[in-house]
């Protein structure tokens, strides 16, 4: 009997402890006391969406170096497997009263991040420009936000305000198996028509690969194409002058791209891996020499080039092919930025800002570029790499930066900003898959997708309007 009572008591104690715990956490989080004055260490949590050794390792190394230089702070990196998971967990943590100070979030959800509010109706994130407030140095770390390259600046500036701190930024570029192209005697294609012609030659050879070109069925490549063609995806200048209320999926630019894509697939030139957003499968097909060309994110330039060499062929990077029937406007960026939590006390906020600026200082940004292929995010970092002679030894690494520099600062080339973008992207890739797998008619498919995409945007706007 005594044992039973003991068991019940244990359970009750645990329950009470659990309740007590959550109570205390809330108090701590809502407190605004200056902790550093008493010599305590301020914790800063950064949640990122990378779980691989290279990228997570970089973040952890930089956090450790920052902590060593600023012993009053302790930056902790927590890794998640996707942007969606980070955002969701952060919102749940916010309700629970212990959210991270810095959240890594991707470009397509920019509108949603700006719009997001907590249970009390306050914005979740604070604009980094506002938080920096014109300072050129925070805790001894120089502010680098003003030096961010123009493509990223154009994308992330909303109503004249830089909302979040750019970190990983890339563009869609093309990688070719130069040995395969040389064997077929074709030059690297620049336009859609060039791709068609080159593929005809490559596939005509006796030992031709099973396909000629591939890229992930990811909406980002569709958006890149719309930027090149100067086609708007949403009204109000792609949602840049005011909140987007109409999405235009069935535009002529979109139809042209889908038709080209469908014809490439039907003639056996495009290799579809059968899975949406299939980064791994398309990459594997390129490395296995099943295709001669791969349109991919520049984020993997370094590893793609190295792996190609390991597999015995020469990888050359080139700009993404474009539609030469319409005037060219430019490619846009992709990637993610670091968002600052709203409502932090001054000490924590300054620590977070100092870390963000340290994280992308010229040396760190250059290192980040070298190990991945994401573009060097500040002009100073670009200069540093040039001085080092990096681009002479790694010409592939320069393609993305050059491509972004060549883009016009027009609404189409800056990229769309709209609510529920992640779901609308899924509608686009589902439509493309329907076209590729079920051989659907381009116009019908895009008009169906238009209805679905507009509904998603309408619902989002209804939920976020005041």
């Amino acid at each position, binding site marked *: 009997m005594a044992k039973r009572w003991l068991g019940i008591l244990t359970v009750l104690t645990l329950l009470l402890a659990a309740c007590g715990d959550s109570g205390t956490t809330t108090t701590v989080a809502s407190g605004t006391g200056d902790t550093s004055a008493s010599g305590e260490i301020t914790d800063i949590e950064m949640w990122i969406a990378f779980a691989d050794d290279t990228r997570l390792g970089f973040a952890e190394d930089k956090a450790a170096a920052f902590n060593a230089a600023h012993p009053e702070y302790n930056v902790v990196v927590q890794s998640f497997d996707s942007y969606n998971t980070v955002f969701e967990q952060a919102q749940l943590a916010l309700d629970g009263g212990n959210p991270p100070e810095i959240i890594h979030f991707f470009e397509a959800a920019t509108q949603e991040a700006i719009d997001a509010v907590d249970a009390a109706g306050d914005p979740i994130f604070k604009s980094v420009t506002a938080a920096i407030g014109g300072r050129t140095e925070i805790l001894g770390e120089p502010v680098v936000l003003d030096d961010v390259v123009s493509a990223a600046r154009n994308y992330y500036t909303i109503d004249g305000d830089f909302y979040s701190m750019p970190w990983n930024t890339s563009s869609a570029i093309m990688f070719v198996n130069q040995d395969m192209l040389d064997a077929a005697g074709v030059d690297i294609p620049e336009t859609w028509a060039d791709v068609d012609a080159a593929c005809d030659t490559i596939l005509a050879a006796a030992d031709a690969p099973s396909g000629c070109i591939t890229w992930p069925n990811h909406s980002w490549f569709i958006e890149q194409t719309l930027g090149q063609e100067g086609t708007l995806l949403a009204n109000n200048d792609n949602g840049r002058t005011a909140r987007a209320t109409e999405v235009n999926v069935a535009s002529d630019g979109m139809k042209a791209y889908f038709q080209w894509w469908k014809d490439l697939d039907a003639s056996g030139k495009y290799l579809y891996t059968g899975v949406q957003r299939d980064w791994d499968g398309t990459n594997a097909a390129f490395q296995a020499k099943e295709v001669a060309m791969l349109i991919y994110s520049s984020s993997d330039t370094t590893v793609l080039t190295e792996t190609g060499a390991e597999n015995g062929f020469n990888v050359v990077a080139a700009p993404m092919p474009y539609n030469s029937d319409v005037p060219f406007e430019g490619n846009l960026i992709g990637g993610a930025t670091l968002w600052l939590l709203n409502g932090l006390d001054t000490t924590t906020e300054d620590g977070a800002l100092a870390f963000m600026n340290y994280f992308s200082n010229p040396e760190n940004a250059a290192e980040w570029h070298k190990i991945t292929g994401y573009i060097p995010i500040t002009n100073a970092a670009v200069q540093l790499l040039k001085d080092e002679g990096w681009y002479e030894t790694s010409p592939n690494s320069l393609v993305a930066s050059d491509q972004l520099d060549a883009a016009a600062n027009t609404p189409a080339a800056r990229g769309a900003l709209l609510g529920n973008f992640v779901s609308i992207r899924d509608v686009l890739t589902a439509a493309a898959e329907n076209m590729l797998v079920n051989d659907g008619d381009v116009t019908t498919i895009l008009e169906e997708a238009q209805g679905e995409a507009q509904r998603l945007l309408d619902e989002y706007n209804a*939920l976020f309007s005041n």
Partner: protein
Amino acid sequence: MTLLIALLVGAGAGAYGFRNALRLRPQPRYLAGAAFGLLGAAVVSGATKGCAYGTDVDSIQNVIGVAIAGAAGLAAATAASSTKAARGDEPIAKQRSELRTGTYRLGWWWPWLLLLPTLIILVVFLYIPAVQTFTLSTMLVRLGAPNTIDVCLSNFTELLVPNPWMVVVLPSLSVAVIWGLGLWKQRASAGSASYNLATTLQPLGIMALLTALYFMFSGGTNGYRSIYLNTVVISAGTVLGGMVFGLAIAYLAFQKVRGIGVYRTLLIWPYAVSAPVAGILFFMMFDPTAGVIQHIFDGFGIDFPNYRESVSLARFTVIAASVWKVLGYNILFYLAGLQNVPIDQIEASVLDGASAWQRFRYIVTPSLGPITFFLLITNLTYAFFDIYGTIDYLTRGAPAGATSVAIYEIIRVGVDNRDIGRGAAQSVLLFLAVIGLTIWQFRRSEDRITYGGVG
């Protein structure tokens, strides 16, 4: 007007639910049933503020609203009549009093105290979320959004064909078929040709229901019909395949062979693998570029088709991975079940000259009834819920949504797309499907399965 119909339907359903209530003469019995039915319908209508009965919503919402009122009426009356039956039942009352005086001498609160931890867990992790799911399913709601919008039943009705007559007539037809077949079997005398025919035709009822549901769900690329079809095909394939192969392999592994212990252990291994890992394994094996299957076929100069681009192959691969995953579990239980097959009956049948197949068909299979029933439920649970992990790693619902089953769609819509209301509505639908299947299974198996012993 619609509200009135809803309440009347609720009352009617209540009266029907009371048809077997004990110790009451017909008239007051039906009246009492109607009262309970009315109460149930009224509570449900009140909870939704009667939003489904107005003229401002489309007529399918009216239809569904009436159907829900009817179901609530039936449920309320059935619950009421079963407590009535229990009270009138002498032995149960006696057992109760024995329990009361025999075990819990410390007081009435003692059992409740012992149950408290379980009850708290049930309430916090099961009942509250369940109620929230029902509430959320009538709203447009998004994580991080300041507003929510009440949408009444439109999260449900947009899954259906936009034609109220289809929504009314199709299920009624299928219920009529099932009911008619049941009545025919009941009326025919056992053993007669008519009875045998009725028994053979029983599956028609289920097929009628499945077909009716197929046409009730909205078609088109974004319609729910394709999800329904995927779910039926993949669940049926997984459950049937898993159980047939499970029994076959267990029967083989039950024979007396040297080293059988090793075989049995190896056969049960896949059970220790989690559902996502099963997905990853098949993903690697069937990978068109680097997979071992492609490699083997390359050896014969055959280009193995890419399952990621073929609708039927993709479904087949998902089924194969799921069958492989549940196989170990099924073998384990069938092996245990086979040890309980009465040896004397087998021996007698051998003496009577029964062939191996006849012994298997008429003695082994029937005595495995309870195990089969149990496995049916657990395998269905796998096929309806756990299969998410397998699909997410194997096909991610591709190609063109051909392997996106109900649970995969719920998570895609509710979690990935953050459309919590629609996700909740779809999970309510899955919840109803599982409840329906379970009730049907219990009913069907009651007269077929014997657990041994008396009766």
